[in-house]
C-alpha cells in the first residue's frame, strides 16, 4: 500500500492539509437523526470503543459490538465490557453484514488486519468510521468505492468521553470525511450525527480532513505533547539532584508540577501560564524560552519534515514489522531513569510553589507549544488544527505524568505517539546539553524570587507581555476556548 498523501499532487495536498473549520452549534441542529434507526456496529470494546458505544446508545442509537471469535470464546475483557453493559455482541461474520455504519475503534496497529477482515463483509453502500487517519493516510489503505469513510476523533481519553457526556457536556472533537470515499454525500451528516451522539457538539467541533488530522496529530504528539515533556522532566530532575536538592522533593516537583503548570495553560493560554509568575520570573522565563526556541527549532522542523514526507511512518512501520524491537528497547530505558525510580517525597508543595520553583518547566512548555504551533502552521496546517494538537492537548498528557510518571504516559498514549516521543527525546537531550550546563537551582528546585525585590523595567515588561499575547497561538486560542463553553477542569488529582 502506498502512502496516500504522497500520491496526491501538491495542490491537493495543500487543500486537504488546510481543512480546519470551527463548526457553529447550529450545524448540529439535526441531532442524531441521520443515524436514527441505522444499525451501528462497533469493532473493538476497549476504552474508546466501549465508552463511545455507551454514549451513542444513550443518545438513542442502535449499537452492537463485533469482536473476533477468539475474544468471544475466551471471554476476554472486551467481551465482558460489552456484555456486562447489555450490548448485543457477535462475531464479524454475524454482525458486520447487517451494519449501516461500522465504527473501527481498534488500536492503530491492528487497522490493516481489521479492515481487511471487515471490508469484504460490509454491505453495499455502508459507512466506515475511524477515530484516527493513520491507516488511510500513511498506510494508504484503499476502501471499496461504494463505502463512505468518515472520522470522528474525540480529543480526550475514553473514560473522559463518557464522564463528560454523563455530566451533560462533551469533549472537543475533530470530524472528517475522506474525499475519495463519499459516494452518496452522506459522509458529513453521518459524522455530525455521530459526533452529537458522543456529546462532542457541546465542546467545540473542528471540521478537518484525514490528512490534516494525521499530519498535525503526529507532529503534536511527538514534539510538545510527549517528547518535550519527557525530555524536560528528566533533565529537570537530574539537574536538581546534581545540585543537591532532595531527590524526593525533586521527584514530586517534576511529577506533579507539569500538571499544575499546564492547568493554567488550559484556561489562559501561554500568557495565562506566564501570568502565574512574578514579573521578574516572567521576564526570566520569557528569555530562556526564547533561547530554547532557537536551540530546538531545527529539531521541530525535522520532525515535521519527516512526517510530511512519510519518512517517520515508514521507519515506524519497519519497527512494527520487526517485532517492535526499538520501541520495546526504548520503553524499557524510560522505565530505568532516575526520575522514574525515585518515589515522590512526602512533602506538601503548594500550587504557587510549583510555578515559583519550576520556572524551567514553564519555559519548556512555552517554547514547546509555540514551536510546535509555528512549525505546523509553516507546513500548511491551519492554526485551529495546530492549536488542538499542541496547546489543547498538553494538559491532558501532563495529567498522565502526574498519575504515574513517564512510564505511565508512554503506556497510555498510542504506540505511534510513543515511538515518536522516544525519537524526539533522544535527539533533544544532546541538543540541550550546553544550555543545561548554565541552569541552576533558581530555575528549578528553589524559589526564583528568593532574595529579589520584585522590581522590573516597565518598558521591558510591556514588551514581553505584548509578544506573549500577540502570538498566533494566543489569538486562535482565545477564540477556540470561548467556543468550548463546557471548558472545565478535565482532571484534577
Amino acid at each position, binding site marked *: 500500500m502506498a502512502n496516500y498523501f504522497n500520491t496526491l499532487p501538491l495542490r491537493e495536498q495543500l487543500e486537504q492539509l488546510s481543512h480546519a473549520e470551527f463548526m457553529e452549534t447550529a450545524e448540529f441542529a439535526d441531532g*442524531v437523526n441521520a443515524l*436514527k434507526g441505522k444499525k451501528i456496529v462497533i469493532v473493538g470494546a476497549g476504552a474508546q470503543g466501549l465508552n463511545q458505544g455507551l454514549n451513542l446508545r444513550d443518545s438513542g442509537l442502535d449499537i452492537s459490538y463485533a469482536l473476533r471469535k477468539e475474544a468471544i470464546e475466551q471471554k476476554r475483557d472486551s467481551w465482558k465490557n460489552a456484555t456486562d453493559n*447489555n450490548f448485543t455482541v457477535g462475531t464479524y461474520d454475524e454482525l458486520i453484514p447487517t451494519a449501516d455504519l461500522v465504527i473501527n475503534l481498534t488500536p492503530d496497529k491492528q487497522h490493516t488486519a481489521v479492515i481487511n477482515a471487515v471490508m469484504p463483509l460490509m454491505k453495499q453502500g455502508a459507512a466506515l468510521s475511524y477515530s484516527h487517519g493513520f491507516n488511510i493516510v500513511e498506510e494508504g489503505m484503499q476502501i471499496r468505492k461504494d463505502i463512505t469513510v468518515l472520522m470522528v476523533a474525540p480529543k480526550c481519553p475514553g473514560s473522559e468521553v463518557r464522564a463528560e457526556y454523563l455530566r*451533560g457536556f462533551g469533549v472537543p472533537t475533530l470530524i472528517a470525511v475522506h474525499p475519495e470515499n463519499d459516494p452518496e454525500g452522506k459522509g458529513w451528516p453521518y459524522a455530525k450525527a455521530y459526533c452529537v451522539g458522543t456529546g462532542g457538539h457541546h465542546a467545540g467541533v473542528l471540521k478537518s480532513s484525514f490528512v490534516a488530522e494525521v499530519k498535525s496529530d503526529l507532529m503534536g504528539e511527538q514534539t510538545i505533547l510527549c517528547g518535550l515533556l519527557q525530555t524536560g522532566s528528566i533533565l529537570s530532575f537530574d539537574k536538581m539532584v546534581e545540585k543537591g536538592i532532595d531527590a524526593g522533593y525533586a521527584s514530586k516537583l517534576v511529577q506533579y508540577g507539569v500538571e499544575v503548570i499546564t492547568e493554567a495553560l488550559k484556561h489562559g493560554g501561554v500568557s495565562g501560564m506566564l501570568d502565574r509568575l512574578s514579573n521578574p520570573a516572567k521576564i526570566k522565563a520569557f528569555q530562556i524560552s526564547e533561547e530554547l526556541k532557537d536551540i530546538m527549532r531545527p529539531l521541530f522542523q525535522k520532525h515535521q519534515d519527516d512526517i510530511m514526507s512519510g519518512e517517520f511512518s515508514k521507519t515506524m512501520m519497519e519497527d512494527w514489522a520487526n517485532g517492535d524491537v526499538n520501541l520495546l528497547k526504548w520503553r524499557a530505558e524510560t522505565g530505568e531513569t532516575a526520575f522514574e525510580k525515585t518515589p515522590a517525597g512526602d512533602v506538601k508543595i503548594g500550587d504557587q510553589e510549583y510555578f515559583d520553583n519550576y520556572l524551567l518547566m514553564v519555559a519548556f512548555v512555552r517554547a514547546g507549544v509555540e514551536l510546535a504551533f509555528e512549525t505546523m502552521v509553516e507546513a500548511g496546517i491551519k492554526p485551529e488544527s495546530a492549536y488542538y494538537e499542541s496547546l489543547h492537548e498538553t494538559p491532558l498528557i501532563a495529567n498522565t505524568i502526574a498519575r504515574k510518571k513517564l512510564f505511565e504516559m508512554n503506556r497510555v498514549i498510542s504506540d505511534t505517539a510513543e515511538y515518536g516521543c522516544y525519537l524526539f527525546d533522544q535527539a533533544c537531550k544532546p541538543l540541550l546539553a550546553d544550555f543545561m550546563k548554565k541552569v541552576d537551582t533558581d530555575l528549578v528546585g528553589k524559589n526564583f524570587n528568593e532574595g529579589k525585590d520584585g522590581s522590573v523595567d516597565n518598558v521591558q515588561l510591556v514588551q514581553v507581555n505584548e509578544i506573549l499575547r500577540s502570538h498566533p497561538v494566543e489569538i486562535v486560542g482565545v477564540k477556540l476556548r470561548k467556543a468550548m463553553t*463546557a471548558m472545565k*477542569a478535565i482532571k484534577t488529582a
Partner: protein
Amino acid sequence: MANPIVHIANLNLQYAGTTVLCDLNWRIYPGEHWIIGGKSGSGKSSLAKAMVKQEKASGEIIFRFDQSNPMLAQAYYVANWYQFANLEGDRNFYYQQRYNKQQRNDTLTVYADLIHFGKKQQLDFRDAEPILEALGFGNCRETQLIELSSGEHKKLQLVQALWLRPQLLILDEPYTGLDKRSRENFNSLLDDMANAGTTLVLISNDRNIPDAINRFAHIENGQLHAVSHLDEIKQDEQRQRKPFPYFLQQAPLVDHDTMVELRNVSVRYGEKEVLKNISWQVKAGEKWLLQGPNGSGKSTLLSLLNGDHPQAYATDIFLFGKKRGSGESIWDIKQKIGIISPELHWYFDKNATVWHAIASGFYDSVGWFIQVKYEEKKQIEQLLDFFDLLQDKDKLLHTLPLGKQRLALLARTIIKNPQLLILDEPCQGLDRSQTAHFNAVLDELSGYGKTLIYVGHYESQLPACLDNRLVLEKGEVVISERREKNSIAG
C-alpha cells in the same frame, strides 16, 4: 476533679474571611460524652476539624491521653463527607460511574481498603469482623468503593473508627444515610466503646443517640455553650413559609398515565444479583415511598428510571409510555425527571455557583448550561427567594453549609417543574427543623398535581403526602402497597 482529656482555650478560626470560632473554650473531662448540636453553619464541623488539625485555627488545643487506658491514645475524626480516590489517586468521579461496568478494578474493594487501613494502623482483622456483622456490612467485602451506595460508604467510615478504638472519637453527622437497624447497632457499639474507655464527641441534631451521651452543647457566636438537656440545644428558627412561585403551582403536563412500568426486571453483575424480578408501576399523581436497608438495591432501581443505568437496555422497562431502548435518548428521559440524590451531590461540579447549579437543572447537566432564557432566569430568582438563598447565589455551592447545599440542589430538582420527581434521601444532611420545613414544602408542592418517588429511612421524618410504599430487601420487592397517609409504621 481529674485533669481534662481535652483542653481548648481561646480557639479562633476564620473561614473565607468570616469569623467562625471566636475565643472558644472547652474542656472534656473523663467520663463525659458530648453531643454538639445547633444551627447549621454555626461552626460545629469547623471545631471538630480544628481539633484534628484539618482546619487551621489559632489558640490552644491540648489532649491528655491516659497511658493506662487500653484504647488507642489518639483523637480520631469521622468527617460528614468522605472522598476516596481510585487506584491512581484520582478523584474525578461522576455519580453514574458505579453503574458502568468497565472500570472494574479502578478503585479498591471494601476488603482491600480495610486491609490497607488495618495495616497502616496495625490492627488485627479479626477485630473488624464483629463490627462488619453488626452494621450489616459483611456481604460488601468484594464490592468496589465506587459501587457502594451512600449509606454503605458511611458504614465503611464508621467501621474503621470502631475498629481503631481511639481514646477520643469525634463523629460528625454519623447517622446520615444509615438504615434503622444499623443505626441501633451502631449506637450500642458506641456505648460499648464508651464503657471501655473512649470519650465520645457527637455532632448531630438527631434524637436517637447513644445512652452514654451525658453532656449537651451548641455553638453560638463562635463560642461553645453547654446546656443541661438535649431539648435545650438551639435549633434553626422555624423558617418563614413563603408562597410557592406561581410556575410551580401548575401541574406539569403528563405524557402518559403510567409514568414508570417495570416488568420482571433483574440486574446482575457477574454472580451478584442486585435486583430480582422487579415489577412496579408508578401512575401519574402517585406519591411513592421507597424503602429498604442500605444495599437493598434502591439506588440501582432509581438509576434504571433516570436513564443512568446501562442495563436498562434489553429489559422490560417503560418510561412515560415508551419502552427503553426504542430510540429515545437519556436526555429525553431526564428532561421529564427532576432528581436529587446523595451521589449527585457528592460528585457535583466543584466550580458551580449556587445560581449555576440551579440553572443546570433546566438542562439536566451538572453545573453547566447553554443559554438561560429570560423566563428561566426569572424562575431561578423566584426559587432562590423561596429557599432563602438569594444572598448566596454567587457563592460556590460546595463552600456553603451542607444544609444550604441541599436546599440549592432541591431547587435544581424542581426548577423545571418535571413530570416525575425522584427524591433519593433529599433530607440527608439537613437537621430536624430543616427537614420539617422541607417536608412541609414538599407536601404543599405535591398538592399541585405532582408525581414523586421518595427514599427515606426514618418514618418520623417523612412528608405526609406519600400514599404508596415499595419496600426492597436484597434486591426483591417485599412490600408494595397503598399507604395510609400520616401512618407511622415500623
